[in-house]
């Protein structure tokens, strides 16, 4: 098995529903049942109200590109995707922000702008692991 990317490691117990959802093509995020706010990353208590009553919901997969950068070199030797690669922070429609890659667009700062609408897509790494990625809504400059 020769992977282009490091697998998510270690998958911690409180994050397992996120990764099981991704495997099945769903973006699952934790949501506090007490205050109603969704959040990321997964944890056993709500970061807004400290309630331990935390459940999971499927996110729409839509959001906006909150920020980005274009990596011309990658320090992690286990990451072998050909550079330049667009590293991104996406703000989900539900509120939480996650780090990801922006795909389906030229790695050129003139082609990409903060706040552009993006949607989730999944890259299958193994039978058990798929990685949520984002692309411009409507396919962008594919």
């Amino acid at each position, binding site marked *: 098995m020769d992977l282009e*990317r*490091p*697998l*998510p*490691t*270690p*998958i*911690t117990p409180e*994050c397992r529903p996120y*990764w099981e959802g991704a495997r099945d093509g769903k973006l699952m995020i934790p949501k506090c049942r007490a205050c109603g706010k969704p959040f*990321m*990353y997964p944890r056993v208590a709500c*970061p807004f109200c400290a309630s331990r009553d935390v459940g999971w919901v499927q996110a729409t997969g839509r959001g906006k590109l*909150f*920020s*980005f*950068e*274009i*990596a*011309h*070199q*990658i*320090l*992690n030797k*286990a*990451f072998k*995707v050909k550079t*330049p*690669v667009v*590293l*991104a*922070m996406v703000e989900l429609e539900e509120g*939480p*922000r*996650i*780090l*990801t*890659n922006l795909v389906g667009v030229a790695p050129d*700062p003139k082609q990409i*702008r*903060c*706040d552009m609408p993006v949607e989730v897509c999944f890259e299958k*790494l193994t039978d058990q692991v798929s*990685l949520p990625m984002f692309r411009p809504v409507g396919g962008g400059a594919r």
Partner: protein
Amino acid sequence: MSDLAKMRELSSSVCIVGVDESDELGTLPGKSQLSLHVEAITNAVRDAGLKVSDVDGIFTAGQHSPATIGEAIGVVPRYVDGTTVGGCSFIIMVGHAVLALHHGLCDVAVVSHGESGRSGVGVSPRRDTALPGQFEFPYGFGGAPTYFGLITTRHMHEHGTTLEQWAQVAVSTRKWAALNPKARNRDPLTVKDVLDSRPVVWPFNILNICLVTDAGGAVVLTRADRAKDCAKRPVYVRGAGEGSEHVMLTQMRDLTFSEATRRSGEKAFAMAGVKGTDFDHIMLYDAFTSGPPLMLEALGLAKRGEGVHFFAEGRSTPGGKLPINTNGGGLSYTHSGMYGIFPIIEATRQLRHECGARQVPNTKLSLVNGMGGMLSAAGTLVLSNER
């Protein structure tokens, strides 16, 4: 007694009496990380006119615990502190040392840093990667530029800041490095040089990013009454503040404004009874060219989006009205990884008026501010050669 009155009681009760680096800075494959600590401590204690056996409070951050440092210098400490919240930990620890010294929990405190950041000699590779291993590394994140780049891009989007403006920070800092014999990179630098340098992670080229070196540094403190008997002019810790907001960049509430920095500054200024406009010398943690402008904004010295103006038109350079990063900074002097000890050392030397060609004339009040992680934690000091 109000909170403010309690803080004010600490102001100027403790002095920095000794500072120094390790014997050498730079590429040092022949020295372990622990040796860099020990060199810096013995040098700084000598600078203070004290003996290593006088030290009874040990403060350090990073891979070695204060127990290791105490053992290495042959001291059984009365007080230890190993708060590790990133590169600003040493700045925060000056505040912790003030508290411990003021209340008599120790008499002579040393804040120590040693890091074989370039050569990796005597370094432990272990790190807590449970969250970044899942949510960041699979996407190519890892290494500080891949996080600070996101902060910088968003700042450009929100405030219209430009690559040229970030480059001016590197140019200003290099002008100071040219005057510091200990600085690693001293050749003249232009905005064009920065813009034409090797791309690493847009918006950063290599000259937007700090050095990676091997270095140690230490700061010795004691109560003001005892400081009078030390070798050098005492530097009063008039104010100290700390803040800690996040670790994962996705958890930063406002990506272009550091809440940790704001809080650290607010506390330090209140304790000292000063305003942001009072300073005549400033040291800011410059791991990236965009760092210092954002720190000035979070500290309230600049409006949001306008921190870059401090580095334009020669304000921050030698001969300018408000000198910033007079040692040449992490960008051009040295940056071992946890840089925070070095701005304290430089501010102390400036306030003692012992900086030779780079001395800021008549400087009296210095601001030291540093970040830990990606603007995640912060420490601020108000230092003065007057009480």
